[in-house]
């Protein structure tokens, strides 16, 4: 009977092998998929009842946890708290049972301790039979700049206003400030009282002012005159003009192929634009619509689009936060490219050109970085629960948006705009500032325009580039682009003072 017994033992071997292979598949290869199942309540509850890591900003003594887990005496054991809720809500996002937004979502693996980089820590915790605390995430944000941006924007647009500020370090792409107003209090949403959560969420979600939207990356609007720096960069890069040349301008311009008053471009009363030819510097400083409309038509839509896309239009680039929208430089309909009238409008950021505040900050950051566009990023370091650095984000060059000489020439034009032109509110004593205002018509009669301001400083070796967008400022005069300058100035000063 020994031969069949041996056969039986081989059969049993296969039974056990099948079990082992199957369970290995289940717990090793298939596990991630199951753990990412949004209907997996176990993962959701575990994530919610874990001591998550901190979200940190700043360094040294200024370091600040903008999200942390506090011990809490209920079944979930920990409560997520946001010490500076309104100022950072658009970045941290919020955590609730089963979902999270913002950095809480994008860095969930680290914060919850599931990330592979935390494997060793997890192993040690297991050996010591400790519940594992998640890793920390240090953001690139500069608390002083964020505070300055928040205060200045809030003061300008008022509690009912809407707007956004983004500041970037041009050489690296580090995002130094990112403010969106109106904001909300994530502590109201992270509550363990899920009825309260639902009430608060429904209220915020129904709010016409969309406090849950991070305007810095989710709202795209006509960039208006701030887009003229893109047009100028394209013209100089193409060799059409240099910064010292005179460019065609004029009081009004009936765009090619059109009739009627609606298609007449004017300069909204800036009379220095009226001569048939003005210096490039004047065209920029006075924000001459006619000059840039003509320039855009001369370049043609393809060249304009190429330049815009070199700065990041029509693509995604920020990896650390979702959702975000792409900024747009339009293509024509039905396979036809834009006609001249449309191209003319794009030259000063109208027609269908749309940009997020982050996109406009990237444009000026690239100019400040001598033409090289860096990938913007928010996550500086991934840390263990004991604040040891596990991984640091390396700056990533996206591309040379323009040549260094082009960047220098556009910078000169923007410096003149701050020194002698419309962007003068951003002047900082002792520092050369390059800047540009923008006022974008909504295309709806009777509605106030959007206000924009972009700048960077010091112009010769930029440390900070800022974009300010004012969507609604009840009771304030947005037209003329004077509101954004002081905000940009405050942010630049906050960075330069460090």
């Amino acid at each position, binding site marked *: 009977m020994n031969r*069949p017994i041996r056969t039986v033992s081989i059969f*049993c071997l296969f039974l056990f092998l099948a079990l082992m292979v199957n369970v290995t598949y289940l717990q090793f290869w298939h596990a991630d998929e199951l753990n990412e199942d949004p209907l997996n309540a*176990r993962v959701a509850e575990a994530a919610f009842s874990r001591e998550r890591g901190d979200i940190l900003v700043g360094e040294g003594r200024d370091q600040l946890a903008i999200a942390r887990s506090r011990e809490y005496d209920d079944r979930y054991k920990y409560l997520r708290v946001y010490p500076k809720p309104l100022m950072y809500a658009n970045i941290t996002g919020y955590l609730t049972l089963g979902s999270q937004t913002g950095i809480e979502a994008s860095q969930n693996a680290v914060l919850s301790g599931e990330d592979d980089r935390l494997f060793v820590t997890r192993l040690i915790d297991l050996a010591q039979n400790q519940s594992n605390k998640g890793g920390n995430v240090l953001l690139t944000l500069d608390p002083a700049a964020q505070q300055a941006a928040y205060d200045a924007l809030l003061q300008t647009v008022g509690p009912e206003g809407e707007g956004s500020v983004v500041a970037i370090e041009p050489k690296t792409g580090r995002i130094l400030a990112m403010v969106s107003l109106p904001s909300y209090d994530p502590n109201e949403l992270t509550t363990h009282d899920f009825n309260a959560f639902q009430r608060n969420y429904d209220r915020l979600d129904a709010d016409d002012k969309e406090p849950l939207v991070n305007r810095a990356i989710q709202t795209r609007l006509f960039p208006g005159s701030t887009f003229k720096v893109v047009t100028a960069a394209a013209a100089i890069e193409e060799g059409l003009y240099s910064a010292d040349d005179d460019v065609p301008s004029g009081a009004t311009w009936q765009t090619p192929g059109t009739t009627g008053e609606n298609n007449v471009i004017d300069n909204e009363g800036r009379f220095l634009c009226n001569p048939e030819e003005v210096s490039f510097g004047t065209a920029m400083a006075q924000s001459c619509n006619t000059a840039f409309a003509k320039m855009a038509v001369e370049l043609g839509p393809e060249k304009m689009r190429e330049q815009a896309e070199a700065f990041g239009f029509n693509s995604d680039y920020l990896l650390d936060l979702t959702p975000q929208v792409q900024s747009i430089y339009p293509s024509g309909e039905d396979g036809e490219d834009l006609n001249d009238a449309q191209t003319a409008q794009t030259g000063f950021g109208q027609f269908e050109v749309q940009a997020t505040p982050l996109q406009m900050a990237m444009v000026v950051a690239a100019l400040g970085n001598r033409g090289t566009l860096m990938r913007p990023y928010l996550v500086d370091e991934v840390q263990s629960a004991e604040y040891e650095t596990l991984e640091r984000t390396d700056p990533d060059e996206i591309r040379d948006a323009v040549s260094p000489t082009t960047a220098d020439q556009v910078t000169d034009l923007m410096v003149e705009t701050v020194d002698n032109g419309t962007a003068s509110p951003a002047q900082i004593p002792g520092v050369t500032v390059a800047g540009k205002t923008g006022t974008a018509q909504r295309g709806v009669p009777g509605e106030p325009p959007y206000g924009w301001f972009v700048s960077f400083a010091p112009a010769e070796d930029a440390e900070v580039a800022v974009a300010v967008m004012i969507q609604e400022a009840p009771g304030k005069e947005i037209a003329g682009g004077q509101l954004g300058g002081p905000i940009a100035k405050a942010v630049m000063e906050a960075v330069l003072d460090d």
Partner: protein
Amino acid sequence: MAANASLLQFVHRRRRGAELFLLILALVVGIGAYASVGLGVDGEVPTNLVGYGGWLAALVVAAHVVVRLVAPYADPVLLPIVAALNGMGLAVIHRIDLAEDSGRADQQLIWMTVGVALFVATLVFLPDHRVLARFTYTAGLAAIVLLILPMLPVIGNEVNGARIWIQVGPLGFQPGEVAKVLLVVTFAGYLVVHRDALALAGRRLLFIDFPRGRDLGPILVMWVVSLGILILQKDLGSSLLFFGLFLIMLYVATERPGWLVVGGAMFFGGAAVAFQIFAHVQQRVDIWLDPFADRNGDGYQLVQALYGFAWGGLIGRGLGEGMPSRVPESESDFIMAAIGEELGLTAVIAILLLYGLIVERALRAALISRDGFGKLVATGLAGVLALQVFVVIGGVTRLIPLTGLTTPFLSYGGSSLVANWVIIALLLRISDHARRPVPAISEEADDPDLNETQVVKTVKPS
């Protein structure tokens, strides 16, 4: 032959010291896991750790001493493995107690005590397993009575759709667990007598000798019994277990692969018909094919178990750090899901290896056993364990449709635990006999196994 001889030389040693050493390791695992549960859930060592650990150690040492006295040549690995599994099961049940505020671990420790007592009794009162051959038909009758008991009114009790329980006052009991041991004895006793007749070849087809038609009687009876369990008690697991067990033993006794073909065909035929006719079989298969289709209904338990396994990953959450009580019945049929979640793939593989070792040691005892009855009993018991582990763990990890059987030694449940301890006692008894040096009857007194091997050899009709 030379290799065999040296192997037999090796197994002649008693190795009781090795057993004691391994038992201490097993206790470290069991008591360590128990302490770890306390640390993980409450942050402190359980207050009753000394009492609990002492009791566990006393049971294990008692079993060891008895083995030393009455079965000194028994396999030294089986008892430590069982102690480790039992200890681990207690710790995990305790862990689920803490989550669900129940007191099953204490119950289980009592059952373990009963199990060890029966283990000791089996070894003491059964000095020679061949005595059991006398009770072939008695055991068969008892097994059938036990299997019918749950069908009776009053004491019969239906739990989770399967009618496999009897309830007498506060005591619940699954007679099927005991029946499986009795059935092994019945099959072995029957087959050892009738195997020659059953081994007679009928027709030869595709290199396989098929048995004669007139010998199909016993297998048909078993087939009907298995189907009866499937249909009347809705217990897929036991049905599959009994029939598979019978097939394995029939094959070993007759050395005819033809029986496997016939039996396999009957099994799959019966299963296919059952699938067509019975809703509860279809339901199990549907759950198996896509548990997520009805994740909050029929598929809930399996889906939660799969999430648990995935959540545990490679090294697990740590005892007390998971949510094993999300899986219904995580203390019994689904205890592997709790282990997979809190101790990870590593522990699951380790436990599978332990089961594999039990089966391997049992089959080894069968190989070296000197009598056909012992060989068949050992093979049958090994087969029961292997099939049961495969069916239940395969079910909870979605390798095969879920059928519902207890996980030997780990699951909460007295009948299963006690029956499995008796199985181990029988295996130790058989291996003790197989490894015991025979009294010197030949001139080759120094190496008597060679003679014994020849006895085995005569079993093979050449």
